[in-house]
């Protein structure tokens, strides 16, 4: 069909940092379809330069209110790698517990407050508050349990304070962990399973769109990987984290101030769906049952299903948090001090799975323990090229729909990836009633 189509979704509601969707079709030929990002999320490499190893994680955790825990832990691991700081098994478990809390929180809020309104045709979450109050309250209850994990393990829900290089400055009490376990089992788990039911009911509204791509995530032989492991590509298999630059291959494009990334193909996918595709066999039966109930199958190539994979992960995070708490208590909580005596100075590289996908931090320290070089590759930057490729395939497939329907499908696509665009600033805009 010969058709002209011009879509421009300008997202200017934030003071700085926004993404615009641009689609341009002339005489039925798609000339342009992309998400342009108008803020470089690469500012902080300069901010950590010259800072000591005690400060790096504090600064990086404040880059973003939503991704703070992921940045903080990934920063700590890079520093420990650079300075040769060994950590204990207890530290490792406590960090995994923190990541589970942050992942559950982000995944649940995304599913309820961004994806569900789309599936219900509601435009935003606000009309749903009146009609689905119980569901909104459920989302907030789950956020609260996730915050409790942050409060108890890291000292503060938003910007963690107790995780430092080499360990924790405070170890949670047994009673605190038991109370957390109770909340996870008695509050978060029933809410998580109800979430599966809600999403199952909405799954019919998920667009049917398939585009096979390369899926990249961490992979760990022992468990569904969030913390520690090798990089894993669905195309080429395992790659050591030390070689991350061979994976990310960042390049500059004209339409975005954020760099794009490619590995084996011209784009790749990171995030919950990539983790699911690469590691779903390592999930427990409850999470797998949740996936089956919501129609998520292994090797899923529908990017809109990223939201469903997030809900599956939330169920996993709740149950695996209980397992971690049991192990911490069974092993006996030890009042360890963080190991902060460097055994070397040099370069350290780390990678963790954060809610939006695989994250890399790479620092080089001088022999005084100050950073001389830093690099960080965030998940959203890695997904941008893949979002563009999805758009290029999607637009011709739905070209017979109305412009409004096409625009919505594209917005939903971008939202499915939950990009970290205007990281960290939320200016309240106010018009006074005269």
């Amino acid at each position, binding site marked *: 069909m010969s058709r002209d189509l011009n879509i421009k979704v300008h997202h200017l509601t934030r003071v700085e940092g926004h993404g615009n969707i641009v689609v341009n079709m002339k005489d039925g030929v798609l000339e342009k379809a992309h998400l342009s990002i108008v803020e470089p999320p690469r500012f902080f490499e300069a901010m950590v330069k010259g800072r000591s190893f005690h400060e790096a994680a504090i600064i990086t955790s404040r880059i973003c209110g939503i991704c703070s825990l992921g940045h903080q832990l990934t920063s700590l691991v890079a520093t420990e790698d650079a300075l040769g700081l060994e950590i204990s098994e207890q530290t490792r478990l406590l960090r995994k517990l923190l990541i589970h809390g942050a992942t559950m929180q982000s995944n649940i809020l995304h599913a309820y407050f961004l994806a569900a309104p789309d599936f219900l045709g509601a435009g935003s979450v606000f009309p749903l508050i009146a009609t689905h109050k119980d569901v909104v309250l459920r989302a907030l209850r789950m956020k609260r349990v996730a915050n409790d994990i942050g409060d108890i393990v890291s000292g503060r829900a938003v910007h963690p304070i107790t995780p430092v290089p080499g360990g924790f400055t405070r170890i949670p009490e047994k009673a605190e962990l038991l109370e957390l376990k109770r909340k996870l089992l008695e509050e978060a788990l029933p809410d998580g399973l109800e979430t599966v039911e809600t999403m199952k009911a909405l799954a019919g509204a998920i667009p049917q769109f398939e585009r096979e791509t390369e899926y990249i995530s961490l992979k760990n032989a022992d468990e569904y990987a969030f913390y520690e492991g090798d990089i894993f590509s669905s195309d080429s298999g395992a790659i050591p984290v030390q070689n991350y630059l061979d994976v990310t291959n960042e390049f500059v494009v004209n339409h975005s101030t954020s760099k794009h990334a490619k590995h084996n193909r011209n784009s790749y996918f990171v995030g919950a769906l990539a983790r699911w595709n690469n590691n779903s066999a390592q999930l427990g039966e409850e999470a797998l049952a949740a996936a089956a109930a919501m129609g998520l199958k292994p090797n899923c190539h529908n990017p809109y299903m990223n939201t469903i994979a997030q809900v599956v992960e939330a169920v996993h995070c709740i149950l695996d948090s209980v397992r971690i708490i049991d192990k911490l208590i069974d092993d006996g909580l030890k009042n360890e001090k963080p190991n902060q005596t460097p055994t070397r100075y040099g370069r350290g590289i780390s990678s963790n799975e954060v809610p939006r996908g695989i994250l890399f931090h790479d620092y080089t320290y001088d022999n005084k323990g100050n950073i001389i070089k830093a690099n960080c590759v965030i998940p959203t930057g890695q997904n941008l090229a893949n979002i563009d490729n999805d758009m290029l395939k999607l637009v011709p497939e739905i070209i017979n729909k109305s412009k409004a329907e096409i625009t919505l499908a594209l917005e939903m696509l971008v939202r499915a990836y939950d990009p970290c665009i205007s990281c960290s600033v939320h200016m*309240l805009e106010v018009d006074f009633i005269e």
Partner: protein
Amino acid sequence: MAALTVIGVGNRLRGDDAVGPLLIDALSMLPDSELELVDAGSDALGILEYFEDRRQVIIVDACSMGREPGGLVSFTPSQAELVLDQDPMSLHGLGLAEALRMGESLHMLPKDLKIIGIEPDSIQFNATLSQPVQRALTIAVKIVRDELERVTIELDTCSDCIEV
């Protein structure tokens, strides 16, 4: 239960956006058990957790109000139209306006809720607080102290919109 809860919203790394958290720092020097202080960082949605069972809440945030930099306005949610991000592309679009609207719809807002908005000069990364906002911060500290005094002696008169 503290008599007054003060919540600072904002990112310490972004110039004048740090004014909310910095106000919390300044108030933490006051030895007052009647004051509950919360640095909410940039997780605006998290403020809803501090509304439950609270007597009086003051939120302090850098606000785009069309004033001169450092302009300070104390207002209630009903006195202002908080501009919502109607079509957020990501969770990063959920800010204070969205959190307050959600709180209102869920009937979670405390009866006595005020917002102290401070117009920023710059919210660039790695910037320090601008002079006008530094001055506004001092005024905000005074407003909170006055409010605390008012609350603790249980006066039930409510000051109207104060513009400084």
